[in-house]
């Protein structure tokens, strides 16, 4: 009888896919109802389950089957408790996922870099998204000596902390291009260097990009670094510099100097100060987002901020 509890749930789930299990689920539920109303179970489902289990064990060891047979009731209760404990745990996990998704926009929560399989409203994609409270973790931009795409006089600046060896930053780079195209004159993007030490050649790539920026060629150079991802060795980036039409001699000089490293460390320190724990991290006004967000995510926030600017302008 005890096993009918498990059988009812398992067969009900399997019954979604097969009519055979629907009949078994009905049988199991019937058994539960009769048991609950203190009547003997009419079905022999529990007997069949018991015999099937003991028979399978008996194939391997008669002794074990005998032990299982004589203690079957205890094992059944144990199985029921284990089943419900596992399900409660899974339910807790599910509830936590929904909570995280609702409050943080990602089912994995603020500290995770994992993929979120359930994302009906495209609030995050691939990485994680954290919408911070106002004033928390916020980097205000733009600053003067960092790469800036788009119009310098744009109303909104998206500050992006990224790593050229990071696949998520690479993905976000394309999204940023689309944002800049669609909000020309209204939005610009400021790049801040945050080379992740665990990504191979990330520091070389960051130094090369900084040197390209100093020659005013950051935007032309960045796609080459993203393309190579974790293969941005000194030799390779010097090759890209030639390809992108940079002054090779000045580039090499810059690349090998200590100053450029200090320049990068300034950005990393700013990122660390702001609590960054993954790339890319975006700051838009007083909100931060971690992970390669979808275009819609940026659009929602940009439109929201633009409309409040319009309201302020109209009020003035």
């Amino acid at each position, binding site marked *: 009888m005890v096993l009918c509890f498990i059988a009812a749930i398992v067969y009900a789930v399997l019954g979604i896919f097969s009519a055979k299990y629907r009949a078994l689920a009905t049988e199991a539920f019937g058994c539960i109802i009769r048991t609950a109303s203190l009547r003997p179970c009419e079905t022999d489902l529990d007997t069949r389950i018991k*015999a099937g289990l003991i*028979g399978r064990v008996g*194939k391997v060891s008669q002794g074990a*089957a005998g*032990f299982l047979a004589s203690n079957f009731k205890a094992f059944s209760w144990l199985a029921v408790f284990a089943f419900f404990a596992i399900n409660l745990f899974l339910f807790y996990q599910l509830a936590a996922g929904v909570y995280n998704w609702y409050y943080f926009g990602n089912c994995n929560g603020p500290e995770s870099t994992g993929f979120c399989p359930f994302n009906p409203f495209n609030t995050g994609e691939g990485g994680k998204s954290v919408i911070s409270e106002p004033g928390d973790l916020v980097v205000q931009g733009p600053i003067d000596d960092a790469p800036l795409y788009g119009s310098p006089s744009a109303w909104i600046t998206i500050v992006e902390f990224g790593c050229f060896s990071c696949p998520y930053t690479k993905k976000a780079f394309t999204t940023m291009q689309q944002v800049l195209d669609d909000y020309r004159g209204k939005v610009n993007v400021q790049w801040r260097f945050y080379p992740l030490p665990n990504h191979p050649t990330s520091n070389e790539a960051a130094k090369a990009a900084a040197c390209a920026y100093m020659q005013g060629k950051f935007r032309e150079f960045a796609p080459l670094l993203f393309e190579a991802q974790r293969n941005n060795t000194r030799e390779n980036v010097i090759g890209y510099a030639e390809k992108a039409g940079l002054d090779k001699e000045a580039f090499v000089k810059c690349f090998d100097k200590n100053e450029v490293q200090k320049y990068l460390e300034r950005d990393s320190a700013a990122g660390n100060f702001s609590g960054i724990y993954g790339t890319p991290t975006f700051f838009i006004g007083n909100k931060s987002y971690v992970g390669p967000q979808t275009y819609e995510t940026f659009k929602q926030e940009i439109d929201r901020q633009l409309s409040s600017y319009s309201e302020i302008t109209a009020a003035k």
Partner: protein
Amino acid sequence: MDAKKIRDDFPILCRQNPQAYFDNACTTFKPNKVIEAVDWYNRENPACAGRSLHRLSAAVDEKFARAREEVARHINSKPEEVVWTRNSSEAMNLVALAFDFTGKNKVVTTNLEHHSALLPFMSLAKKGRIGLEFAIAEKSDCSVDAGLEKKIDEKTALVVVHHTNNTLGTSADIGRIAKVAHEKGALVLVDGAQGVAHHKVDFRGLGIDFLAFSGHKMLGPTGIGCLVGKYPLLEKLGTFMLGGETVETVGLEGFVLKKPPKKFEAGIQDYAGAIGLGAACSYLGNIGMRGIEEHEKKLCRYLFDKMKAMDRIRIFGPQEFAGRSGTIIFGVNGVKSAHEVALMLSEMSDVCVRSGMFCAQPAVEFLGAPHGAVRLSAYLYNTIEDADRFLDALQKVAGILGK
């Protein structure tokens, strides 16, 4: 009869590690001859018999008629006495519903019958169309002959009795019962579902009036069975299902029925099934029913003796093997559920047996198994190795459940 050689004719027994199949009272495996016969119809000649005039139809017509002849030869009747039905249940129902109970309406049967023999007549009794009386089997040897004889009198219209009991494997003395019944002016309907499959049944020799049996219990396909009846009685018997092929002419003012057996065979028939059953009869005939009967008895006597020696096994019914044939029903002492035993035999050793009431609840309860029993039923392809495998598995199951 060489069971090991016979196994080569059955594709399912030529697989690696075939089951030890002891559920033959439920249904049987099919030999190549039957499979090929059914396949011939479906693959090469899927046409109607007796209606259309084209070549395909003529070929089916011929095979269909030949199948009827094969069946008639198998049970020593005339082809025109063989009516195709879906199974023995339908054949029993046909007699129950088409029999003329005006004048005399008493039906006598036994408490050991299969539901297919009981229910059609219990239903008629409930409607008040017949008076139904039961002969209760002897406790000692489960024989029904004497009980039936006592119940049969001048008011009896029909005696309904098994040839071989599906629960116990014991056989009624049909010849004697028929003689007594005829002396009192009653007719005899024999449920031959187990009898025709496992014994040499001589329809004419036994002097019975109607005989019902199924194809699938005797190596034939499922969905085909027969009612065999003495021709004058079939002519007198009413119909319970009408349709195409049952009539000579139809006008809005009325219709003229065909002669038996056609008047009972409404609609398109199961040609593949009938041809398959013909092939099964021919196959069994070539091996010889006497040899098959002897083989089953020998095997079951071996099983019976070994099982009787097992501590925890209880055999239901007569405690001597004499009078039994290829079926044994039993239980494991201390184990309430027969299904538990059957399932474990299957899970642990791939031994197939039946458990429950075997569609004969009054009989199983009479035998002292109110929660059902386990039934082992052998056939021509079972070997001594199968028997030993079953015994070994049963010993293990009894050991496990007894701990």
